[in-house]
């Protein structure tokens, strides 16, 4: 589904991602862990197509397409979803209005008729139940005045509505209490299907107690320096990042 080869990316001339390789197949859940500043969020932004980052080298192929050729909105319509670490507020725009616009843009791209108001409401009710979100939330402006937990739940709710092929969750667990964390993890688990994939970016092992990854990668200084199964996350938790740094090949 997603194939990243020898990717290098920079911002304002500063290289952040330095020759990164990653393969994600349908049905898989990958966890990317790493210390602050290792390039986790940059990787997410580059995949989503944020123009503030420059891709200097390498290729990214998604569903057989050259992803780097596509503008951000096309990537989204092609099924890539980014759950933001810091979801931004859009005052005056209700979540319902925002998501209806987004879904209908995607449908237009796919050659489908837009959802009517009634159809959209039905879909929204269904997904609200699925991810256990309060019904009042969708009438509020996007993220405006939301608590940290509400913002993250809202990201998962949007993900449920958009049904992405590839979801990248950027530190969705940060700042969550245990109850909110469970809601987020349950949402992700319920949305898991054989034909989609999830990349969970996280700093802590905690989220992985609830979302079981097929693969765990350790990102350090712009490169994946160690990959393994879920046990790697536990080991990491126990020994700390200093341990992998020592294990990292020379020159990194």
């Amino acid at each position, binding site marked *: 589904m997603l194939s990243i080869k020898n990717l290098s990316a920079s911002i304002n001339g500063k290289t952040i991602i330095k020759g990164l390789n990653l393969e994600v197949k349908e049905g898989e859940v990958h966890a990317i862990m790493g210390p602050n500043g290792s390039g986790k969020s940059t990787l997410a932004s580059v995949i989503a*197509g944020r123009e503030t980052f420059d891709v200097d080298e390498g290729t990214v192929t998604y569903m057989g397409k050259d992803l780097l050729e596509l503008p*951000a909105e096309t990537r989204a319509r092609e099924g890539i979803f*980014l759950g933001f670490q*810091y979801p*931004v507020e859009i*005052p*005056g*725009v209700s979540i319902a209005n925002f998501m209806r*616009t987004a879904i209908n843009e995607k449908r237009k791209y796919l050659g489908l008729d837009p959802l009517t108001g009634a159809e959209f409401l039905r879909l929204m009710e269904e997904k609200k139940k699925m991810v256990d979100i309060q019904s009042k939330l969708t009438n509020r402006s996007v993220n405006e005045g939301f608590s940290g937990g509400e913002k993250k739940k809202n990201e998962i709710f949007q993900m449920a509505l958009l049904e992405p092929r590839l979801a990248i969750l950027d530190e969705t667990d940060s700042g969550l209490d245990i109850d909110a964390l469970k809601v987020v993890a349950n949402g992700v688990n319920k949305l898991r299907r054989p034909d989609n994939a999830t990349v969970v970016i996280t700093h802590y092992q905690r989220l992985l107690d609830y979302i079981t990854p097929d693969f765990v990668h350790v990102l350090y200084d712009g490169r994946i320096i160690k990959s393994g199964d879920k046990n790697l996350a536990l080991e990491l938790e126990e020994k700390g990042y200093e341990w992998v740094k020592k294990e990292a090949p020379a020159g990194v």
Partner: protein
Amino acid sequence: MKNDSDKILQEVTGSDYKYGFYTDIEMDQAPPGLTEDTIRFISAKKNEPEFMLEFRLKAFRHWQTLKEPEWAHVEYPPINYQDLIYYSAPRKRPKYDSLEEVDPELLETFEKLGIPLDEQKSLAGVAVDAVMDSVSVGSTFKKTLGEHGVIFCSFSEALQKHPELIKKHMGSVVPYTDNFFAALNSAVFSDGSFAYIPKGVRCPLELSTYFRINAANTGQFERTLIVAEEGSYVSYMEGCTAPIRDEHQLHAAIVEIIAHKDAEVKYSTVQNWWPGDKEGKGGVYNFVTKRGICEGEHSKISWTQVETGSAVTWKYPSLILRGDNSTGEFYSVAVTNNKQQADTGTKMIHLGKNTRSTIISKGISAGRSNNSYRGLVKTSKKAENARNFSQCDSLLLGDQCGAHTFPYLDVGNRSSIVEHEATTSKISEDQLFYCLQRGIDMEGAIGLIVNGYAKEVLSKLPMEFAVEAQKLLSISLEGSVG
């Protein structure tokens, strides 16, 4: 004629401004220039009662003693008032019999804006009732309104049929001595609208008029007068578009509203005049005096405006709250893009006890435009317990535009409470990327964010107007963020 229509088509299809078109109607024009003879010509042409001519002449003589105001935060080349034509009327009926004859591209644009069919017809020049240029033609709702005793007609018609009402109220809110442009309008106004709601009547329909500026080089001088008698209610809407022109066009209108005891008037306008091209060439100069008076106790007037047009806008819909417990509201969204300049705001003059006013102003600047809010809140000595709340927000798109706020407060007694809040914000790259990542393209994202920002005001508009206004906001800002 064939060549002319080709030219029209070219103008329509070749322009950025999607509503720029030109209705080719033979004009019955006054020669350019402004003298007492011009005024006599206009008055005679319209077969006006004697008092009207006298009013015009007095206004003209006063105007000659005045100088054009220069205090607004706008710049434009001097206007030569002797070059303008002060009267033109269509001699023939409009050029189309049905919508099928109208340029499809134009219709598509109307569709995009969601303009109702009848309004499409009037905008495109198909025969329906509308103010075309200076002479207005009747009104479709007349019958229903007549049953309720509501008068809604062109100003000229009102002068013929209800001269006593005009004589009594015209100039009572905006006297011709008020300012330079008001004096000019009072001298040369061509036509406009008159609405009269009798005592105790809740007007069953929303009154709406479409104004258009039409002939080249014609100053447009509209006058609107709305009188709401005791206990009545009316919602009045005015929408504007204008054809593309190379030279600047002057528009100096007057709107007067009178609300008696327990009466309520809602005045809404969406104004979309040709703003000039990206370099600021062409476009309408909009110098307008709008004022209402809450004459009686417990009366209420609200102004709601969405301004996206004009090269230069100078406009301060104001309210005099004379009746005790009367209420005034001002809700405004003003968009400026490219090289547009807007200096707009309101005045709330509290004279009566327990009077209340609310001001919500949302400025949106893009391109190299300048958007200023200028507002005065004044409470007189007698206006005990008067209250005002003002909120003036500015939204900037890009870093070459300007937003300015000039609030003036004049509090005349100790029991008044006047509050003013102001914010300035920018559309952030984070917000745009958030929308893009959800599959919404750049134009769509700006449209959403801007409409969200202006929601408080848009929600005050009548439904069909609100929909049109939302689309207009998005269209006005097309291409404003790279």
